[in-house]
């Protein structure tokens, strides 16, 4: 049996890993920005993020991984205290 890693070089195959589809954060048009002063650490944004790009920091606050956040805005919509604002993405 051929080594799967060898075939993966040749055929379009993806292996489970963070960002196996590339840095999808580059697709973003609007960027969610969290106001930590308003945040109540309820975790709703972490639970609802469709791409699992919001992580919980050691101090309990949410943190967005902008490498993979596509800017869909679900977190901003579900935030009960309106602590997440969508701002226009600035492309470098």
């Amino acid at each position, binding site marked *: 049996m051929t080594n799967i890693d060898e075939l*993966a070089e040749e*055929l*379009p195959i993806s292996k489970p890993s963070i960002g196996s589809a*590339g840095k999808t954060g580059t697709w973003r048009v609007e960027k969610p920005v969290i106001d930590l002063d308003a945040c109540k650490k309820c975790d709703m944004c972490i639970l609802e993020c469709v791409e699992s790009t919001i992580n919980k920091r050691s101090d309990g606050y949410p943190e967005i991984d902008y490498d993979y956040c596509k800017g869909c805005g679900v977190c901003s919509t579900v935030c009960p205290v309106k602590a997440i604002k969508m701002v226009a993405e600035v492309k470098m």
Partner: protein
Amino acid sequence: MVGNHAVAYAVKQAKPQVLAVYPITPQTTMLEKLASYAASGELNAKLIKVESEHSAMASIYGAAIAGARVFTATSSQGLLYMGEVIYWAGGQRVPIVAGIATRAIGSPWSIWDDHQDFVSKRDAIWIQMMAENVQDAYDMTLQAFKISEDKRVILPVMMGFDGFVLTHTMERLSTLDDANVGSFIPERDFNIIDFDKPIGIGPIATQENYIKYRYKAMQAMERSKEVIEEVSKEYSTLSGREQHGLIEFYKCDDAEYIIVAMGAWAGDARVAVDELRSKGISIGLAKLRVVRPFPKEKLMQVKDRKALIVLDRAYSYGFGGILATEVKASLYNANIPIYSVIGGIGGKELGKNEIIGVVEKLLSGKLESEVWLL
């Protein structure tokens, strides 16, 4: 055997584990034969009953990824309906063999032979072979499995053979022993899925990656030329029947004129060549056995002749005969007159007399650059 049964027999000997075929004229009697092999236990394979050609290709695509040797067959509208998954299989580079009983495309409705369905899939990342007769269809089916599963290639292969002209015509057939077939195409020794290391099939490829995989597919298609020649040589030795690889040059060594053709009417052209030679006309036949990859390097061997006549059973509307276009592109720098003859569309009868007629017209200087044999 008739062509459909000859291909079914070759498939039985190749021992696929999974088949999925949806009936369509003129392929149906092949499916019936395969179903009877599977029902009687002569072929130990799962024949999946599907509701369409789209599902037929989708189900064997999955089975092939999971490690099975697979086969399907279709024709005309069925090939078009299968189309979406055909491109998925080509892009994913799944080892699959498909028999295509060539047939005209509607509208108007026609169940008869031409090559429009087959050539419509020439950019789908599939190797495409085309049989001249029933023996060829049997021989090519066996070679197709070996080429498809070669690790330097890993591409799906279509074996085309003319609807009715070959599918329903009975010819004397020489077959290989099962043991010889077994040693020629042993069980596939690799699997795309390694069950210990999960992978995703059909994943998204970003703008960075997509083009790289297409580039690799292009390279695999180029590499397959050498593999096809190798497999052809091995099969020639095994069977005692010369296979000629990508293209066969028949009486071309000294020929001033060359007819280029693929499929069943290459047989008519062969008889026409013999008859014209008996009248002292210096002519030969270049039979395209494989059109993807296209044997453009090999065609250079006939670049310094007086003229080529390319026979096409399919047409690119708004441009020209499809093979003629490709032959012209291959010989772009050769400065040789290339005549395009379109015929046999939708099963219109033609044989050696029509081909001889075309050649005589060429010799008398009356042949136009493109002619339709209506």
